[in-house]
Structure formats: structure tokens, C-alpha cells
């Protein structure tokens, strides 16, 4: 597939339902603004300025704030990588609700390693450690599903709780920065951070987003062009037919869960190395859960993860930009919740008409 085809495929992933969804998002935001008694025009202006950095200057639409777009990309990056993690499990027919836990376990592991080993070796080893720990955290759920039939939704939710309390315990104890009041690790040295793509005093764009994009392209290629990708999708679409086609379904389930966990761990590592530079209590603001929405929104085409993650990032950054107007920050999540319901209705309506016929 040529580059042009890739772009076309990406555009193809952007279907009518996505447009509908964006319209629904704007409408529900508008309704929310009316409820909170805020002038929608003013809010819209702030929203565009606060997320994309665009504003009207002397009657021309101009780019005025690098800070705004860098903040949006910062929110997009973990959702993009964690979205890939959810998506790969989904392709094998598994709901990995445990991305949240796998992500924080990976983040803590990465911070612990990068704090001890300075420079590029620390970055590399920290990332590898995070991937391994994320994978290890997902492994039990995969094994239980494949060989005992225990549902991965239940086991991964349990593993999330374990992850949250274990990481909180560690960051309050052995890894705590003694100079700080709150439970957090010390901050990484500059040499232990991912390089910036853009770096000025008021805005930085980390190369983390680039890692996410490259990973996504590689993953999309693997899914379509490798026999193992084909087999994984077959297991997700019809496990019985896949088994009769000679696919080792149990192994495929375990593998996809482990890879999903590994990528979730990577999302945690990138977050630490590229954005937060430390690990602290309650590290993830629900990235793993929002990633479920991202993967759902992406539909069946992996390239759909890009617009979906960006859209989620936009809403998250947008709701903090609107805080100035007295709109609670969590209102963004209200809108997200509404959107996921609308999307599910559009997407799964078809299933019902099939069962009726």
C-alpha cells in the first residue's frame, strides 16, 4: 500500500457517523453552556483559542497560541497510545478494561528505572521495563480467558484495583521523594527525558506523540499485511471459524492480551519520559478508560484512532480552557459520555436490524 493509499484509508475511516458525532458533540456542548448561563459565542471563541490556538486577529484567522495546541497534543498522546492498546485487544475480541492499570504500572516502572540510570540507557531500559510490566499485568487476564474461560472484563477490573493500590503504596513508600510533602517520585534529570519536537519558553511539543503515530502505522500495517495479524482478526471476528481454520485461538488470545498490556505500559512510559517527568499518586486521569472510548470511536480501521484520540484530547483540553468561564472541568467528560452513547447507538443499530430479519 502506498502512502497515498494510507492517507485515503485514513480519510475513509472518517465516515458519516464521525461527522454526526462531532455535530452531536458541539450541540451537547452548546446545551451545557446554556445550562451554565455562559455566552456560547464567548465560550466557542475561548474553546477554539484554548485548544487549537486559533483566533481572529484584524479579521484574519491566525495562529496565536502554541501553548494551546501543545496542551491538546499532550492530552492526545496518552489516549493515542492507550487507544492502540485497547484496539489490539478489541480486534481479538477482548475488552481490555485493564489498560488503566497496565499504564500506571508501566509508568511507575519506567520512572523507577530512569531515576537510577541516567541518560539514553535509562530512557531505553525504562521503556522496555514499562512494556514488560504492562504485559505482565495483562498476562493473568489473558491466561484465565484463554484456558479457563474467565471473562477478561472482570479480571482486568480486578487487576486495575491491584495496580492502583500497589503503585500508590510504592510511591508513598520506597520511591517517595523525601523532600516532597505529597506522594511523588523525584523529578527526572533533563537527560532522562524524551526530546522535544518544539520547545520555547511557553510551549513544548514532546516527541512522544511521534512515537504514538509510528506505533500506530506499524500496528495497522501488521494487522493487514501479516498472517499473524489476519489470524488475530479472525479470532476476534469468529473464534470457532478461526479454530477450524487452524488458528491456535488460545495462544492468540494470550498473545493479544500481552501485547495490549505492553502497549499500555509503553503509554505510561511515554507519559513519564515526555510529559510528567515523575510518577505521582493518582497518576492517570482515566487515560485507560477514555482509551476505550477512543478505540470504540475508531471503528474497525486502526487509522481511525488518530482522529478519535485527537478529538478526545481536544475535548479534555477544551474543558480546562472553559474553566475560566466557571464551567466545571469535568463537564468535558459529561460530553464525552454522551458522545459515546450516541456513537454506540449509531454503530450498533445495525446489529438489531440484523437480528430482526
Amino acid at each position, binding site marked *: 500500500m502506498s502512502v497515498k493509499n494510507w492517507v485515503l484509508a485514513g480519510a475513509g475511516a472518517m465516515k458519516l457517523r464521525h461527522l454526526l458525532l462531532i455535530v452531536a458533540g458541539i450541540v451537547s456542548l452548546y446545551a451545557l453552556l446554556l445550562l451554565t448561563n455562559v455566552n456560547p459565542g464567548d465560550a466557542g471563541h475561548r474553546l477554539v483559542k484554548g485548544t487549537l490556538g486559533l483566533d481572529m486577529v484584524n479579521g484574519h484567522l491566525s495562529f496565536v497560541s502554541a501553548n494551546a495546541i501543545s496542551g491538546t497534543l499532550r492530552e492526545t498522546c496518552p489516549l493515542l497510545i492507550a487507544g492502540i492498546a485497547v484496539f489490539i485487544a478489541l480486534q481479538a475480541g477482548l475488552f481490555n478494561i485493564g489498560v488503566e492499570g497496565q499504564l500506571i504500572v508501566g509508568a511507575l516502572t519506567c520512572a523507577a528505572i530512569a531515576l537510577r540510570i541516567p541518560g539514553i540507557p535509562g530512557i531505553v531500559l525504562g521503556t522496555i521495563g514499562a512494556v514488560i510490566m504492562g504485559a505482565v499485568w495483562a498476562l493473568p487476564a489473558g491466561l484465565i480467558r484463554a484456558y479457563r474461560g474467565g471473562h477478561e472484563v472482570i479480571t482486568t477490573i480486578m487487576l486495575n484495583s491491584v495496580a492502583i493500590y500497589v503503585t500508590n503504596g510504592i510511591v508513598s513508600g520506597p520511591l517517595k521523594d523525601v523532600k516532597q510533602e505529597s506522594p511523588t517520585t523525584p523529578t527526572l534529570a533533563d537527560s532522562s527525558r524524551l526530546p522535544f519536537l518544539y520547545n520555547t519558553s511557553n510551549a513544548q511539543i514532546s516527541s512522544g506523540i511521534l512515537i504514538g503515530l509510528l506505533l500506530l502505522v506499524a500496528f495497522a500495517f501488521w494487522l493487514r499485511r501479516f498472517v499473524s495479524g*489476519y489470524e488475530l482478526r479472525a479470532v476476534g*471476528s469468529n473464534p470457532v471459524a478461526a*479454530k*477450524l*481454520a487452524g488458528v491456535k485461538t488460545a495462544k492468540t488470545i494470550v498473545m493479544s492480551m500481552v501485547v495490549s498490556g505492553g502497549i499500555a505500559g509503553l503509554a505510561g512510559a511515554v507519559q513519564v519520559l515526555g510529559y510528567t517527568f515523575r510518577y505521582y499518586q493518582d497518576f492517570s486521569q482515566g487515560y485507560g478508560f477514555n482509551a476505550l472510548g477512543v478505540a470504540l470511536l475508531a471503528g474497525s480501521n486502526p487509522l481511525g484512532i488518530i482522529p478519535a484520540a485527537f478529538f478526545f484530547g481536544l475535548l479534555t483540553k477544551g474543558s480546562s480552557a472553559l474553566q475560566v468561564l466557571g464551567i466545571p472541568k469535568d463537564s468535558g467528560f459529561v460530553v464525552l459520555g454522551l458522545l459515546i452513547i450516541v456513537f454506540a447507538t449509531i454503530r450498533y443499530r445495525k446489529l438489531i436490524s440484523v437480528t430482526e430479519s
Partner: protein
Amino acid sequence: MPVLEMLGISKSFGAVKALDDVSLSVEKGSIHALVGENGAGKTTLMRILYGATAMDSGTINLNGQSAHISSSAQAISHGIGMVSQHYSIIPELTNLQNLMLGAEPGWTISNKKAASRADELATRMGFSFDWNASASTLSPAGAQKLEILKLLWRNAEIMILDEPTAMLSPADSNALFESLKQLTEAGATVVLVTHRLPEVISHCKEVTVLRGGKFVGSKPVEETNTEELAEMIVGHPLTELAPHQAVGRETARLTLQNLSAKGYRGDLAVNGLSMELYQGELLGIAGVDGNGQRELFQVLTGGLKPESGSINWDGEDITSSTIGNRIAKGFRLIPEDRHAEGVIDDWPLEENAALGLQKQPPFANGAYVDQHGRKGAAEKIAAMFNTKHGGLNNPMSSLSGGNQQRFVAGRVLFLNPQLILAFQPARGLDIDATRKLYDAIRSKCLEGACAIVVSFDLDEILIHCDRVAVMHAGHILNPPKGSEHDRQAIGRLMVGAA
């Protein structure tokens, strides 16, 4: 006066004209057969009558009066009921709950009262049911009977049965027709959609033939015969049947020794079975459903581990070899349940073409998918049995059932098959396509492969297979010398009588 008249019915799906000015007239108290190839429009016509599909134009008269039917609820209130090809029995519910489902007597349910009415209906038909038993224990014949009782429960006067005998043994089919006869004598009317012409000749009063969405003709059954009907259905004289091949039993390719395997109930569904399959052989296994045919196939494909015994292929013990390894040796399966086992509905045809063959060229190039090779292969697979499709990028679900079956059969024969395992391969195929499929299997056998076909339709096996065996209670029984193709002798073996 006919109890049911459908006049000038037309229906298009997009650009496809599924029905073009079709008429049907059914006398009260008769069994009226509706026959035709796949895609002839039989099911569409019946779905229009049942209110499940809206017609574009035409009229429906019931007892001489024009009737407006735009939903299944309206059809039911007019006394029309339908049993589709796929049973709608819910295994998690009891028989009684299934019977009432959707037509409960009121806001509250008295199981006692309901069971007594259910018993009354069952006795009228000569059936008997344990109403509190779980429906998961029903045999296919039992499920079919329950479906018919569901229609009676809803006071249906006109019953549409879509391929009711597709899953039944000859004995069960005969019993079913006995019950239908009783029903029609009591004043009910049956419209029977079927592929099986002998059934039409022996049990129906009138027959209507459709072809390509058009009305071909209606005849009293006593004025016609299977050959004439077959020609009306396909529109031209049928291809000659290939003669049975006598195979020199020289090279045994598949040897099963003392093979036992557990069924889903935990009993030994395959029970100490031994048999040999020779190079070039096309073996048909007849038998009543539920005698271990399914488990035998699962053991042969590698999906079920045998409890004891051995499987030898070309002299090599493959008892514990995986499904994938067997596929690599040339084992190919036409599965019983195409939807659940053979295809991925929402994938394009091109990707479905590779299913099972995904590791081998031309579908793969090492670890990579060979997209070019796969496309070419998919074209050949679709062409083998003239699968009608709107493009290889369309999803499998866009094909009719018969065309899906053609595609699956094409895939099985595409890449050097050595052991062809076919479970009810003619399901959903018309007469001509069935002949072509068996011819293609036989020509692979003549090239050195061998094949085992399981069917519950004894006639299909007698007509098409070179050697006939019977599966009964987990054993393979061979008909006595001199009556290898004798219907009576084989029928006796099927019910376990020597």
C-alpha cells in the same frame, strides 16, 4: 375458492428484482409445495406473506377478501404462521416457555393452564413433550415439532414451513408429514418451501415453481414427476449424473482404529469406530442425526481429542496432530454450520477466501499476507461454482446462503485437497449445484484424494457417493454384500436393525 391468493407480487432489493409479477394460489386443507433454485424468490415471497418483508406491488387475498399485511403481528392475527429455516428455539428456556414466547396468555402466566393447553395441542398432532424440560435437550426433529406447535398455539390456519426437513432423518420426515396430513385434514393449510422433490411427489397436493423471481408454473402433483419438476426449476435439462466409480482398494490413506470420542453430553458419541478410506474413494456416511457424525468429524479435523484409538494418515499416526498441521497435509472441511464455522460474515470475500489456507501460498508469502495472490485465488474460488457476488470486496454477509455455500465449497477444493470432509454439503444448494459439487469432489478423488460426506439425506448419498456406509450409535456399519446401494438395506442399518 382458494384460501390464499397472492397476485402480481413484485419486490426489488436495490437493482435486483427478487420477485417479478409472481402469483400463488393455495386451496384450503392442502399441502402446497413451493420449489425453485436458490435465489428464485421462494423465501422472499413467503416473508411477504408473513409480513416480514414489504412488497412493492401486488395483492394478497385471504378467503377471497383482500388483506393488508404489513407486519408479522398482522399476519398472525390473520391466522398465518411461519417456521423459518433457522429455528427460533431458545435453548435456555423450557419447552413451555418457548411455546408461549411472544404469545403469552396474559400479564400473568399459569404454567398449569398453559401446559394443559399445550398438551391438548400436542395430542392433536400425536406429539408428546416434557413441557418443563429445557429446550436445549431437544433433537432437531423435536425442535421442528415444537416450532409447529408454536404456530398452533398462535391459532395459525395457514402455516408456512421453510425447508422443514433439512435437518431431519427420513423417519422423522415421514412422521412430520403424517402430522401435517392430520392438520390439513382438520382444515389447516400448509405452504411448504423445499428443495427435496421426492417429498413434493409423495406428500404434497399441488406445486408451484419459481425461477429467477418469476412464476414458472403451478401443477397438481399427480400430473407431474421429479424429472419434469427438476427441469422446470433449472430451466434446462439437468446435467447427466456421473456414474459411480468402483475404486480399487489398493492404498488405504486414512485408517481409523478403535476410535472413541466423547460427545457434548459426556457419553461416547464415537464408540470404538474402525474404518479405512482408500485413495480415490468418495464415501458417503448415511445415518440419523445425532449418531456421532458430528463428533467423528470433529475428531478428524483435529478439533476434538479422542478418548482412545488412533488416526493414521498415509501411514503416519496423526492422532494428536493439530488442526493446522492437518490442514497442511491437505485436510479440508465443508462445515455443517457455515455461518458459525466456515466464514466470517463481515469480512470481504477476498479475506474469507484465505480462511484456513492463510499460511500457504498463494495466500501467504512467509509471514506476510500475499494480497495479490489472495485476490487471484479468491477470483478462482468464486468462479469454481459460479458464486454470484457483487465484487470481492463485498462482505460475505452480502451473499445469499446458497452462494456462500458455493464459495466455501470452492475454497475447500481450491488448494490441493487430500482428504475432503463435507458435512451436509448440499445444504442450501439446488439440484444442479449439488451435482456440480459432487462432480468436482469426485474429480479430485480421481486425482488421488479421498472424501467423506455426511448427510442426513439418504437419497443424496445414494445418488452421489461411490461407497455408502451408515453411522449408528457411534459405529460405522457397512451394508451387506450385494446391497451396497440398496435403499431398504441401508435404511434398516440407519435405525439399528440388522
